[in-house]
């Protein structure tokens, strides 16, 4: 319908920039971000009947984009798992060995230090968010993707495991390794412990 195409064209002109920004922040790759934005508008075109002015166009488009990004992560994650299972055969070390001694106790310089109890105001602190971002970017790809996937969509863990084709046990072990590293990094670089 001409009407639909006109509306979509308007949206393309209006929202491409902000959708692209969002996508780029997530996938860190210009071409991929462009492709995801394109897929988003094409999907919106097909599903326009579902829109029905129930929400803001931007909100709706963003939700489609998030799904596309989640699909992208899922593909990357599966590829990554294949790569890493080949690497681990060569007996690579476990991330957890960095934090714990042979007896399973905390290594002296890795012991959790004290954090201020004033949690929520940190979320408004740009410098803190930059440190946090740096800590997350320091993760290996597997861990980073698992975190992104977990939080991007408020999905149930069971559903996430099904989609990524891993067991819940694998899932929490990967998350654990991711979080223990991020926690340690923030502990040292923000709270100076």
């Amino acid at each position, binding site marked *: 319908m001409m009407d639909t195409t006109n509306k979509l064209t308007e949206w393309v002109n209006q929202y491409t920039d902000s959708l692209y920004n969002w996508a780029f922040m997530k996938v860190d790759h210009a071409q991929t971000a462009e492709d995801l934005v*394109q897929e988003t*508008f094409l999907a919106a075109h097909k599903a326009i009947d579902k829109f029905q002015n129930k929400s803001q166009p931007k909100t709706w488009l963003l939700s489609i984009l998030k799904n596309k990004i989640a699909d992208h992560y899922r593909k990357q994650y599966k590829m990554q798992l294949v790569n890493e299972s080949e690497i681990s055969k060569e007996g690579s070390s476990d991330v957890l060995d960095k934090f714990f001694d042979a007896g399973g106790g905390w290594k002296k310089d890795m012991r959790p230090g004290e954090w201020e109890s004033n949690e*929520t105001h940190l979320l408004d602190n740009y410098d803190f968010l930059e440190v946090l971002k740096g800590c997350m970017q320091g993760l290996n790809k597997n861990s980073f993707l698992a975190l992104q996937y977990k939080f991007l969509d408020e999905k149930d863990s069971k559903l996430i495991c099904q989609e990524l084709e891993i067991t819940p046990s694998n899932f929490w072990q990967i998350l654990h390794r991711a979080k223990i590293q991020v926690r340690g990094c923030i502990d040292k670089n923000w709270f100076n412990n």
Partner: protein
Amino acid sequence: MLSCRKATELIEKKQITGLSKKEKIQLSMHTKMCKYCHRYDVQSQQLEQYIEAQIMAEPSNGKAPKHELSELKKRINSQLSK
């Protein structure tokens, strides 16, 4: 007796699949006695909030490197009118 290593694993497991009764008791006993793992437990929960905020944050305009989007828009619009 749980090792600290095992305790931190259970702290994460608790969040995703939940713990067995035995594991709950073991963890509770450990964190009552080990201040580091107790801190880890508290901080791990705080971390959930921080990471979620980081991941869900809408990027403010201008954070992505400048990228010319007019070609993309043309391409999309021509796809849409097919």
